[in-house]
């Protein structure tokens, strides 16, 4: 009896060790990049696995001078504008789909949801041509419409589900008192479905922040988002690994930090969006 218990404990320990080893292997490239970004140029290649001695911030200075901080700000701006618009438009539509009955509700919903899995590559050429014709080539304005449009289907789907879960009693009472739909949407459903809004906001925010193909095609000028800026920075400084790695850390660290703090929301949001990868 005791020997079988010991065997089981040993096995559990072995499984844990294996899992830890796997996790360490999975985390190693990021950890290596973070340490290497603090090293002097040649040490990255000649002593790849030693701690930075002494650590240097020069690589970060190079990355900042190249404008990565500006692009960071661009990404923050573009992502927040788009997420705000997505939440506004999607929650209005979701209110109608969840609470109001009207002719054409089913077909309109299907039409909107049909866009869910469309690859952005399907619209790159028409959007690029349209933006060039409209004189918007290179401008961040050319990205707001497409980003919002491509975020809407999933956001409406998820928010409709969240709104449907809010109990109707409060609204029924308010409606009797002559409260308008717009006020119900703003004063009842938005606050009650706050979790859903945060989840959807984070899901679409991560997508917009990381989006590359559309930004690459549209942002031909100096105004760049982080992914485009980072790729251009890498092209320019490809021999200076220290600077490139510092750039990587500047791009990835805020997202990872946010992830560790708001993990619950992010995991829920992204797996709720299991239809978009």
């Amino acid at each position, binding site marked *: 009896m005791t020997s079988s218990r010991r065997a089981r404990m040993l096995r559990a320990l072995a499984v*844990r060790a294996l*899992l830890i080893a796997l996790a360490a292997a*999975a*985390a190693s*490239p*990021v950890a290596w*990049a973070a340490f290497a970004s603090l090293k002097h140029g040649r040490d*990255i290649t000649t002593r*790849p*696995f030693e701690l930075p001695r002494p650590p240097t911030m020069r690589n970060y200075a190079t990355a900042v001078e190249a404008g990565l901080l500006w692009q960071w700000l661009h990404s923050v701006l573009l992502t927040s504008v788009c997420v705000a618009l997505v939440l506004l438009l*999607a929650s*209005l*539509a979701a209110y*109608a789909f969840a609470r*109001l009955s009207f002719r054409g509700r089913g077909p*309109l919903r299907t*039409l*909107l949801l049909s*866009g869910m*899995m*469309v*690859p*952005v*590559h*399907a*619209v*790159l*050429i*028409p959007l690029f*041509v*349209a933006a060039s*014709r409209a004189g918007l080539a290179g401008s961040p304005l050319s990205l707001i*419409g*497409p980003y*919002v*449009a491509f975020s*809407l*289907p999933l956001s409406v789907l998820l928010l409709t589900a969240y709104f449907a879960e809010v109990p109707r009693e409060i609204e029924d009472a308010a409606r009797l008192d002559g409260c308008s*739909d717009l006020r119900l949407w703003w004063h009842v459903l938005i606050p009650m479905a706050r979790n859903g809004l945060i989840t959807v906001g984070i899901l679409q925010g991560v997508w917009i*922040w*990381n989006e*590359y*193909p559309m930004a690459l095609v549209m942002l031909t000028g100096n105004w760049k988002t*982080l*992914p*485009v800026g*980072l*790729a251009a920075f*890498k092209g320019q400084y490809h021999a200076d*690994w220290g600077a490139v790695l510092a750039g*990587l850390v500047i791009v*990835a660290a805020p997202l*990872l930090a946010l*992830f*560790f703090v708001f993990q619950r929301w*992010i*995991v829920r949001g992204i*797996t709720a969006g*299991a239809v978009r*990868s």
Partner: protein
Amino acid sequence: MVPYAFVAPALFVFCAFALIPIALGLCAAAFRIDPVLRVCEYVGARNFATIASDPPFHIALRNNLLWILLSIGVQIPLALLLAAALIDQSRFCRALRTVFFSPLVIPGVAIGIMFSIVLDGQFGALNAALSWVEGHQVTVGWTADRRWALFCLIAVACWQYTGYHMMVLLAGMQGIPTELYEAAEIDGAGWWQRLGGITLPLLRRVMLADVLLVAIGSVKVFDIVQVMTQGGPNNATEVLATYMYSQAFMSERMGSGAAVAVVMLIITLGFAVIHSRLARLEAGAP
């Protein structure tokens, strides 16, 4: 009129920036578009004939297919094992889940750049580590070597997405009643027996839906390929998305690019239709 006023803004933006562009993209594939972006003449299916006779297009199709198969073969089993091993709410399990999931929030561009440095043939960290293990200098070109390049890229994609599929499957597993496991444990079923006898059959639909998600994602793959190899060396890692990008925006063959985009659209929609059928089947059960 009130309901329509609520729906109209979203529908308008969706139609203007997604639906109509998709339709225009379908049309663009049937026209010749010159380098200054004027639509010139109707050419029917000629753009499709052009790409169909272009060897890189065939390579791209084959690579996307390989990408789908290998991603499914690696990510789903690994994600399933990890989810089954890390399902409980102990601090240990939660911490490891965080580690495995975290690559998903890093931009694909950053991941591509990071791995192109790690996998560099001359000074990369992987070769340095292998040299240390092997005791002599290892100089495999990884992404520069056409035998390895595609497999390296797929491995990077697996690194990025396995944790995500672990979470998707884990969400599905949480819907399985725990009494089933307790009963099986009393009957003396081991971990593997419980996985094969309870989890797998009850998770079949979730897994099938997840397999389709991997397939759809693999058809759209762009970021890491564009950043790490741009489809090279010699088109060895060309995928539909990079081929479309290079046709339309590097070689100024907008018509051919539009035709490739249509092929991508048809393939993803095919998978998406199957996926939504499954989702509808599933809608009855949580």
